[in-house]
């Protein structure tokens, strides 16, 4: 087994999988169940002045029959008293001393921040996460994403927290911002120990076409809510990478956003995350999903000869950069494996109507090609000379490894946009003619 133990800015946990702050981390009962199931840490549902919630609170995005492809909520922070929450954290830490319990906090004034930071440390929490991200409800009262969207305000409040903090402080960032790196840098400047991202994305998931009220519906009205779940993972990965790649940030990153499997987790780690937070997948399937996440991540690390998460962390970061660094001379074309082709022609129609018209439907006979179930049925054939190597056909193909994007050696040296511009300026080459 690879070593999954985690030391995140001084917060130790037996594995990197933490229950994210949210409905699954609302009570000691849930924390006990999470740790029994194998989670490494719990970020408590955000503690603050008790609020009042509404019914209903959640809505889901169903895609092609897949439930919870995306998920949205208008639930606020904990509706339980700070006394109950801090007492339960103490009880959980007492029972699970080697697991991480992090108190998520959201209050308003400097004094209240000092008080809640101190109470967090006093109850035995291993760390504090500052909720600067909730995009609904609390932001209307000057908290949550209202803070996270304004780096100066965030920096001030992190500063207040650091005045009183005796345990590691994580700043949770909102994605509802033009460039998340500015918020991450503000956290760094104010002395935070780590960042976590992303919080939820402002959203309306759907409109009920009978009532014309979006979901979730509260007495005939709705409100924008925080969007999360598998559909947001690409957004989260990009923002995690942006923070990991920024030399001014330089803080440990707890990755959040659509993580549901060990594969998702490994991708976040490869892009720079040190711990991983999960909420929606638990809301969908329960705490039991962590068993495969640990098992699969460990097996993956072993299969790659990696002994711990440190061997994987950030390995993908240098592979991502600006577009202008990409090689303009690199070429690849689609190749169809006719042993595997089932004749659905989705590659043809996608290329034909949606891309670059490079896959013909041809008479199968002269090629001795695949699908024979319906005689005379045409088969797709790539015109390799015209293929721009865009990937679309291989993405829509329903058969594993039937369409492969195959590198083609052009015999030309790598040339970035930057190189190209320089070569043009020096007169070393003529402009590449436009595509006909």
């Amino acid at each position, binding site marked *: 087994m690879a070593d999954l133990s985690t030391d995140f800015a001084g917060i130790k946990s037996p594995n990197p999988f933490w229950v994210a702050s949210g409905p699954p981390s609302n009570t000691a009962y849930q924390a006990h169940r999470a740790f029994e199931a194998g989670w490494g840490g719990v970020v408590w549902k955000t503690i603050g002045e008790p609020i009042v919630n509404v019914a209903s609170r959640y809505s889901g995005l169903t895609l092609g029959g897949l439930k919870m492809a995306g998920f949205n909520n208008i639930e606020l922070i904990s509706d339980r008293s700070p006394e109950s929450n801090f007492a339960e954290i103490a009880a959980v830490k007492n029972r699970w001393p080697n697991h991480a319990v992090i108190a998520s906090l959201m209050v308003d004034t400097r004094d209240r921040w000092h008080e809640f930071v101190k109470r967090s440390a006093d109850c035995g929490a291993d760390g504090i996460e500052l909720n600067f991200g909730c995009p609904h409800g609390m932001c209307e009262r000057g908290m949550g994403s209202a803070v996270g969207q304004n780096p100066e305000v965030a920096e001030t409040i992190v500063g207040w927290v650091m005045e009183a903090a005796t345990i590691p402080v994580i700043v949770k960032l909102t994605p509802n911002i033009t460039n998340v790196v500015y918020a991450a840098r503000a956290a760094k400047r104010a002395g935070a120990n780590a960042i976590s991202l992303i919080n939820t994305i402002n959203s309306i998931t759907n409109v009920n076409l009978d009532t014309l009220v979006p979901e979730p519906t509260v007495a005939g009205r709705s409100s924008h809510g925080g969007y999360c779940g598998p559909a947001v993972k690409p957004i989260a990965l990009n923002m995690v990478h942006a923070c990991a790649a920024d030399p001014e940030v330089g803080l440990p990153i707890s990755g959040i956003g659509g993580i549901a499997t060990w594969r998702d987790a490994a991708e976040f780690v490869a892009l720079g995350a040190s711990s991983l937070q999960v909420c929606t997948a638990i809301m969908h399937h329960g705490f039991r999903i962590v068993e495969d996440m640990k098992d699969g991540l460990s097996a993956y690390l072993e299969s790659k000869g990696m002994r711990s998460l440190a061997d994987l962390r950030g390995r993908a970061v240098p592979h991502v950069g600006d577009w202008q660094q990409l090689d303009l001379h690199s070429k690849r074309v689609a190749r169809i494996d006719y042993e595997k082709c089932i004749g*659905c022609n989705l590659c*043809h129609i996608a290329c034909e*109507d949606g891309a670059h018209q490079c896959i*013909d*439907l041809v008479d199968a006979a002269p090629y001795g090609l695949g699908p024979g179930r*319906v005689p*005379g049925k045409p088969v797709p054939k790539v015109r390799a000379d015209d293929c721009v190597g865009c990937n679309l056909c291989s993405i829509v193909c329903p*058969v594993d490894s039937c369409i492969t994007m195959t590198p083609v050696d052009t015999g030309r040296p790598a040339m970035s946009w930057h190189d190209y511009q320089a070569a043009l300026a020096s007169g070393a080459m003529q402009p590449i003619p436009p595509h006909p």
Partner: protein
Amino acid sequence: MPIQPLLDAATAAANLADIKPPLAPQEARIEANRCLFCYDAPCIMACPTGIDIPTFIRKITTDNVTGAARTILEANVLGASCARVCPTAMLCEGACVMLDLEKDPIQIGRLQRHATDHVAALGIDVLHAPAEKNGRTVAILGAGPAGLGCAAELARLGYAVTVYDKKPAGGGLNTYGIASYKMRPEVSLDEVRMIERLGVAFRYGVEFGRDVQAADLLASHDAVFIGIGLGGGNRLGIPGEDLPEVVDALDFIEQIHTRPLETVPVGRRVAVLGGGNTAIDAVTQAKRLGAETATIIYRRGPGEMSAYPFEYDLAKTDGATFLFDTAAVEVVAEQGHVAGLRLAKTAVRDGRVAVVPGTEWVEPCDLVLKAVGQEKQASLLGRLFPGLELDARGRVVHDPATMQTSLPRVFVGGDAASGGREVVNAVAEGTKAARGIHALLAGATERGPLQPSRLGMPDGAVGSGFDAPIRVSELEAALAKG
């Protein structure tokens, strides 16, 4: 002994309930979401009526079930009955690419039923005829699937259409001759009513040649369509054939549809002669109506039966038994009633099946159902339409593209043209004939639904999608080439 009904109404009804029950809405959506939405899909090519199957299935995924029914019914007006009676494993579902992924094919038939049931249950008409007619009239002989396909298409094109049939109701074999566990007659009668609402007039109880003369129809109409199907059951030509318990299998099935189930007489030991799908329908329904034994007697081996493999499997599951390489040589009577069949083993000699002498025995039975094929209508057609060209097998000679016969204003479709195929073939031929009539009378061409053109592509890409998708005619041509 005369035969009696064997089961009470509730038991008989339960035994004849749908073997493929309707999909619940969520089941339908889950199944529809499995469809890959192929382009130039092989299921379309395998459907004689060329229904745009991926499109109607996609509409089910978006809860546009009425639109799904419109896609189906615009191509095949009998989409509801075809959803139930088509041998889908041999057609659309047999062509599904899922089979190449080692998965179960999409249940196209059941999804089609889901969509057509939806509009039938809600009384939604998705097909419409123009309010202003084009002034031309067509007479249609036969209200079976071919006639209905032709009538609906012509009505939608603006023709005044009258359909004549000798039965008291329309639908043909869909109403009178389908196994009950596949389809109830009400489904077929609903389809007839839908076509009535397109403005088509129906005249029932009409005997051709007696009540209606073809010459009169040709004089009063711009064109005539022949959709009279096949005639009565073939005779066995053996002693005892006229005993009261020797019944044509199609007549037996018609009784199941036209009488209360608890009044349909069934033998305790039923013998069915024949190896086709009608024989299967008869033997399974005899068993389901309480027969203690029901046996198919067939002159050749299981591999030579014209019944589809899944029909053979169904009969075996229902507990039917089979005597292969066996021929009936005499119906044995006691006191004027069937008491048994004298059988003999057969062997193939010089390519012909012949009885092997000295192998005879008597198998006791009290009901004999004949499923040895239907007669061609050659003599009737000859009297009705002097000069109408028939082939050596009694089928009406026609242009396969237009279904026009040797008489210019006479068109044909269905079993009268093919000698006996599926319901879906008959609808397709009727629809094709309607377009042939339209081309003749209006000089206009009508085509089925089209996928987008590839005109303008460099290098003359081949395959379907130029200006018309590959349809089953091309498939058949490819199959014929081998």
